[in-house]
């Protein structure tokens, strides 16, 4: 570790404000896009009556799933008592809150009537998984704040374990809830599978870990520190296991589908001849999001944390590709109203629907990312979230 000079501190100070300004600019652009969507209606987005959920939902669901997964780091520390993870629990909790806030903002601002958000808080439909999620998401934020408190306030330390267990259980339920949004859609061939909640849970592990790793590397770089190689090795290994696990879940989902002849048309569409979707799936998710990162994590000779950070970045981008295929590809495939019939109508029955996102929904999604970025950047600056490792002892 080099001693900081006055120049380097000045430079960092300026860089901090620059980063903040850049994040603020993106967030402002996102808010402007929301304003336009509010004024003109969703007509200015690429979403329509066929593709009802679009790019904002890809961003929001990624953020929410990763927000739950990132807490893995905290859980391994608090619930299973591993010291190197415990040192990272505060940062993981912060990231979780930041991403939840970002994701929920996007979901909320994409509503047709965001001004009526109070209605969602006062009228609960107990059979709606969306209504459950309102509770699950807000409860998660509250619980993680309490958890952070038990870690950062010495007098609250005794409650840390119980808060940690609470968070651990809650986030499983939360990701299950997110998976259920799709698992409960009986009518659409892409969804309506009980496999989806566990799939989302394992995906959340991989994505959350990747986000955590990327942020951790940035913080270490900023402070001109090197992460202990043995700690890095363990974390890389865990990330690799999560990536393999999520690939297994995704493969199971597609392979079981491909076995049912009623689902084969859909699988052929997503995996072989559906235009952008097979490309995104194979190149975006499988190759760039899984194979290359695994190579970067496990190949001998490249031990630097920068490579692991690159692997994490690719896993995140792969996650976006998978969600795009899952959410938008899943809606592009027509509903099967009359099995065994060729169908046509003025409402795109029997046709594959096209979707081209507009700049506005893209800006809204980016705005959500930038909110998560801003919360993280400011918090890391003003509070101590830097992992404090004791000399490493295997436990």
């Amino acid at each position, binding site marked *: 570790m080099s001693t900081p000079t006055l120049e380097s501190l000045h430079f960092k100070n300026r860089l901090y404000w620059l980063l903040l300004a850049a994040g603020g600019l993106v967030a402002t652009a996102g808010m402007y896009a929301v304003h336009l969507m509010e004024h003109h209606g969703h007509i200015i987005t690429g979403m329509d009556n066929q593709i009802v959920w679009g790019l904002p939902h890809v961003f929001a669901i990624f953020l929410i799933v990763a927000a739950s997964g990132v807490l893995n780091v905290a859980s391994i520390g608090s619930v299973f008592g591993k010291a190197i993870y415990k040192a990272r629990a505060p940062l993981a909790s912060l990231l979780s809150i930041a991403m939840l806030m970002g994701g929920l903002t996007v979901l909320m601002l994409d509503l047709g009537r965001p001004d009526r958000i109070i209605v969602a808080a006062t009228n609960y*439909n107990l059979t709606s998984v969306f209504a459950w999620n309102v509770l699950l998401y807000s409860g998660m934020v509250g619980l993680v704040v309490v958890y952070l408190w038990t870690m950062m306030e010495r007098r609250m330390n005794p409650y840390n374990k119980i808060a940690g267990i609470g968070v651990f259980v809650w986030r499983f339920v939360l990701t299950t809830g997110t998976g259920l949004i799709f698992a409960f859609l009986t009518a659409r061939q892409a969804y309506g599978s009980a496999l989806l909640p566990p799939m989302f849970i394992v995906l959340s592990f991989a994505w959350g870990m990747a986000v955590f790793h990327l942020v951790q590397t940035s913080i270490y770089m900023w402070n001109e520190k090197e992460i202990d190689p043995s700690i890095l090795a363990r974390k890389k290994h865990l990330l690799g296991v999560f990536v393999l696990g999520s690939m297994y879940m995704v493969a199971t989902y597609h392979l079981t589908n491909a076995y049912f002849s009623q689902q084969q048309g859909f699988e052929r569409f997503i995996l072989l001849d559906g235009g952008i979707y097979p490309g995104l799936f194979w190149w975006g998710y499988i190759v760039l999001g899984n194979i290359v990162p695994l190579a970067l994590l496990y190949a001998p000779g490249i031990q630097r944390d920068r490579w692991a950070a690159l692997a994490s970045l690719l896993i995140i981008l792969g996650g976006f590709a998978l969600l795009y295929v899952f959410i938008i590809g899943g809606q592009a495939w027509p509903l099967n109203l009359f099995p065994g019939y060729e169908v046509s109508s003025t409402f795109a029955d029997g046709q594959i629907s096209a979707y081209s996102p507009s700049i506005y929904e893209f800006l809204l999604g980016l705005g959500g990312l930038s909110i998560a970025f801003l919360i993280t950047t400011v918090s890391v600056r003003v509070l101590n979230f830097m992992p404090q490792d004791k000399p490493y002892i295997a436990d």
Partner: protein
Amino acid sequence: MSDMDMDRRNFLKTSVGAAAVAIAPGMMLYSVAQGKSEGASSRVRWGMLIDTNQCKPGCNDCVTACNRENGLPGETKATDSQWIRKIEIKDISSGREISLPMMCQHCENPPCVDVCPTNASMKRADGIVLVDKHRCIGCRYCMMACPYKARSFVHEPQHDQNPDVPRGKGTVESCTLCVHRIDVGGKPACSEACPNQAIIFGDLNDENSEIAQKVRSVASVQVRADLRLNPGVRYQGI
């Protein structure tokens, strides 16, 4: 006595069964005293029977009538609302062609109602599935859940709506079975407009109604019956 009251009388005469006599009088007295209609009754189950043999390919009269009645622009871009649409289907193995109208099927167990976070999607006591736009936040989950793709999202600000049929930007909407007509004793515009009387509307629970008699005597199916949603709209000749 106004037309509306006459209609109500007829409606009561035809649809209220013997069981109603025990409970209804008190309620009706109250309603009449307040100058209100008596509201949707769970003794009624509104439904439609569509005879696809009578439905002509290329004929769009039901769609036009719906658009006119409900103040829809009647365009067919992907962002435009279509409460009812004509679907042409062709049996892949036999080549048999059928034309039929598709709209909200007014399920007994509607997935749109199950998934709606705010209870905006709701089913009236008489089986009509509606969107309460006072509560709809525009999340579009119901559109994801509907197996019939019956719902549309209003993508643009609306002007000049039919005073009986409110519709507005940022909310989801669908066929209301012309509830504003039903409540004054009328029937849906599509059913009225069909030149071949292919759409029979009525109370499925009233065994003397035309629709109930016909459902008993001819073979009819529900679309996606495998989902067990028990739609109130049935099709004959598929």
